[in-house]
């Protein structure tokens, strides 16, 4: 009846497998992040870009800007221009404006996304308000710069990219403190 391995050991191994698979479910979270970054899935952009590139004046890429409020977010939020034409390799800047129309201090977090998603890996932000949270006092207005480089290696068929920001109200998660500089970025976005 018994094929060499006792029931006790078999059950132990199966329990270990169960625990391993439970852990694997959680391991999928960092694996997913790595995959998204490696393959540019879901338009996730990398963290702050430290390098520099030489501008390529022979090529022009149109970058469009979108700003969206997540549900329940009441701030005014927009970019100062809808689109600009940029040369790959050059450093460009776009100003986004946010205003808190309420009578309470609030904290916000912007989440960027690039379309088409294959281009996300070639879109480098050297400075972005999305690297940190924004705290605005009642009625306060802020101008937030984004500086970015479109990589010279951007695939030739991509002539058009969209940088979309969604602004989330995270006041409940991160209560706004007195009017001081925003804390440094905890993690790359």
């Amino acid at each position, binding site marked *: *009846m018994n094929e060499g391995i006792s*029931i006790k050991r*078999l059950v132990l191994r199966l329990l270990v497998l169960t625990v391993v698979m439970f852990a*694997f*479910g*959680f391991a999928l979270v960092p694996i997913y992040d790595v995959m998204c970054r490696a*393959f540019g899935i*879901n338009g996730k952009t990398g963290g702050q870009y430290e390098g520099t590139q030489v501008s390529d004046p022979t090529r022009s890429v149109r970058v469009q800007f979108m700003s969206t409020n997540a549900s329940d977010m009441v701030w005014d939020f927009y970019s100062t221009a809808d689109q600009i034409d940029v040369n790959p390799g050059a450093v460009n800047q776009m100003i986004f404006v946010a205003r808190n129309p309420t009578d309470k201090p609030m904290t916000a977090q912007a989440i960027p996304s690039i379309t088409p998603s294959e281009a996300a890996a070639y879109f480098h932000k050297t400075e972005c308000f999305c690297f940190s949270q924004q705290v605005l006092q009642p009625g306060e207005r802020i101008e937030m710069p984004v500086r970015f480089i479109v990589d010279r290696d951007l695939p030739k068929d991509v002539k058009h990219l969209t940088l979309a920001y969604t602004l989330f109200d995270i006041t409940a998660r991160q209560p706004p403190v007195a009017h001081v500089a925003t804390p440094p970025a905890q993690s790359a976005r």
Partner: protein
Amino acid sequence: MSAVIDDHGHADHDHAHGPAKGLMRWVLTTNHKDIGTMYLWFSFCAFLLGGSFAMVIRAELFQPGLQIVEPAFFNQMTTMHGLVMVFGAVMPAFVGLANWMIPLMIGAPDMALPRMNNFSFWLLPAAFLLLVSTLFMPGGGPNFGWTFYAPLSTTYAPESVTFFIFAIHLMGISSIMGAINVIATILNLRAPGMTLMKMPLFVWTWLITAFLLIAVMPVLAGVVTMMLMDIHFGTSFFSAAGGGDPVLFQHVFWFFGHPEVYIMILPAFGAVSSIIPAFSRKPLFGYTSMVYATGAIAFLSFIVWAHHMFVVGIPVVGELFFMYATMLIAVPTGVKVFNWVSTMWEGSLTFETPMLFAIAFVILFTIGGFSGLMLAIAPADFQYHDTYFVVAHFHYVLVPGAIFGIFASAYYWLPKWTGHMYDETLGKLHFWLSFIGMNLAFFPMHFVGLAGMPRRVPDYNLQFADFNMVSSIGAFTFGATQIFFLFIVIKCIRGGKPAPAKPWDGAEGLEWSVPSPAPYHTFQTPPEVK
């Protein structure tokens, strides 16, 4: 735990004369037949409950416009129908069949871990009381679809979602313990001479199903745990505001969800592979290829999950990979279908109720497989996604697939369980009413789906009115017919023509070597398998 097995000689003194009396017999039992019976009854109750939710859905969709229920309640009905049918009806039914039949098929005296067996059953009523009680809570029960996509199930969920999460945890623990028990029984308690490649296919498919369960139920537990942490502990696994990603939920969920659909169908494959040879009076064609095909399906089920989410914005390379991998599943499945057909080829066929259900299984499951192939085509899926075509597809694989497989098994083994033959005329009537009702209910859904009717919406465009009325009439027929099935089973338990040890002359297997009804204890001394 091996001590439980070693003790068998002693334990037999206590209840060698049969089961204990009264209610405590069922609460405390460690007998695989008792536990199998309880699983089957539990599953049937859940089937009627989930079915009554479906009746509410079909009543609302009988005509366009909002007539009977509020949209919010309609959402709870679609969600609960899915959850109760998947986790309450289909899965426990197969565990019940496994409990009853696997020890009988491999010549074992009981399951390997009888006490754990009792525990894994009794977790289920607790889990489902928890789940169903959410319907009576303020804010209502789960309303986010059985796939509970974040953020619907996190940010926008009703208050009761925490109870839903714990119910899923309990069901998961129950399924994992059941799976461990099945594996331990099959690998350790086979009678001498019963080599792996001599096992009936039901045992084989259950062995593979059990490994699938152990591989993916913990992932389901993980994903609901992440939801719990997002809702109550301020994490952001699925919240974009905190750096998470709602699409991650879909990846983790379908990593569980796709193997899950094979968990619901593989044991039916196994049962049908016993039933078709019995009524064809020929051995199963291509036994070895059946085993390998099952293994191949199980393996492929892990690498196709993203075909459920073609529209979330996967890179083209990813869409192609998941499209081709999904289509590849048609190969081992085709092997199985051709093997069943070849088994019937030139056989001496008779069409008793189990055989009718088994043949309908082969034909209708294949139709569901074909609509699955259509859905696998990524560019076409953009059109079909979240329409009634998807609903038609998965009901064609689950109702005449899993459910008809369970009906076929129930009729096939009822004489062994009860010692009486069921009423053949009533059985056939049950089959034909189910067959007609089911096709009437689900076939028109293909048409309205292709024409663009979205799923999970309580109202629809006027152009879909006729087909929806036909669907509803079919669904009411199918639903009412199942009450009739209850009557047939009770009639069979209470009396009927005494069943011989082997009521089907073409049947093969150790389960037919014990008398009918199967004694409370069987194979105390292992049989010799040649």
